[in-house]
């Protein structure tokens, strides 16, 4: 993977992450991209509060990122003291709701924006494999039509789930986190 692609995401990249120290790897990737681009971060793994605490502990400026949190308690109602850089979706099963939020977010933040989806295998826990593939393909098409970059994260488990293999066919590039870490350091 080229150094340019790490700093400036222009296409759609599928990032395979090693199962050990996943958060460390995610933080490195996000921190690197956040230097040059706005980030829309769809989290299916960790709640917003935990995520920003981790990013802050690594001195990454999360105020320039917009989060779409799919796991903080469902039935969230908009409150006055709601974080302005986070949209809460009731459930990771609400793929239509997630798609709507992503579309709005890309439309209003373009150009120079990168979408992160953390992660594809977490989506598979809550949805059918075929539905997740359809969702990923829809999101990839959306990103391309808006000219935005995308990073889809997936855990490298040795025997990758069929979804990851299917999504790999639609992206511009498949990257291994190890390569990225070596290049960044």
């Amino acid at each position: 993977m080229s150094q340019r692609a790490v700093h400036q995401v222009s296409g759609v990249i599928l990032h395979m992450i090693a199962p050990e120290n996943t958060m460390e790897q995610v933080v490195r990737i996000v921190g690197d991209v956040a230097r040059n681009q706005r980030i829309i971060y769809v989290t299916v793994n960790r709640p917003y509060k935990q995520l920003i605490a981790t990013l802050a502990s690594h001195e990454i400026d999360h105020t320039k990122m917009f989060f779409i949190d799919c796991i903080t308690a469902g039935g969230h109602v908009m409150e006055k003291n709601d974080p302005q850089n986070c949209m809460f979706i009731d459930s990771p099963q609400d793929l239509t709701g997630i798609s709507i939020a992503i579309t709005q977010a890309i439309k209003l933040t373009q150009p120079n924006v990168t979408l992160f989806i953390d992660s594809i295998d977490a989506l598979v826990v809550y949805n059918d494999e075929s539905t997740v593939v359809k969702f990923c393909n829809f999101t990839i098409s959306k990103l391309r039509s808006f000219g935005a970059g995308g990073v889809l994260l997936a855990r490298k488990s040795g025997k990758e789930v069929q979804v990851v293999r299917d999504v790999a066919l639609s992206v511009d590039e498949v990257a291994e986190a190890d390569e990225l870490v070596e290049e960044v350091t």
Partner: protein
Amino acid sequence: MITQATYNQFLSAVSLVLTVYTVYLAHAIYKYNRFSKGWLFIIAGFSMAVVRRGVVYLNAAIENAETSTKLVLLESHLAILSIIMFVFGFWWIRNDFAGFKAIAIETETKLKRFMAPKKRGRTPRKKR
């Protein structure tokens, strides 16, 4: 020559087949968007309509007055049950669409505030 009874039976049979096809279509739509559980009620409603059509078809063939009365009562119950399923299912689907609209509006509101240039506080001048 086609009698009135035969014609009625023919219509009932066509109606039965079309309702079964509607159940299939409702199930296919549900498969596209599994999140909307309201479609399950629509499927249940159409399935009851299939049974109801079957009862009507059966009733047309039966000559026993007592059995026929029971079947008419069963048909009425099935009709009201299927309508309840439709009402509940479409109410659920409408709520889902309202939720999607709410997500779009809330995301837009938050993003506009997020994208707005931040006001920088002035640093107070030092007194000489």
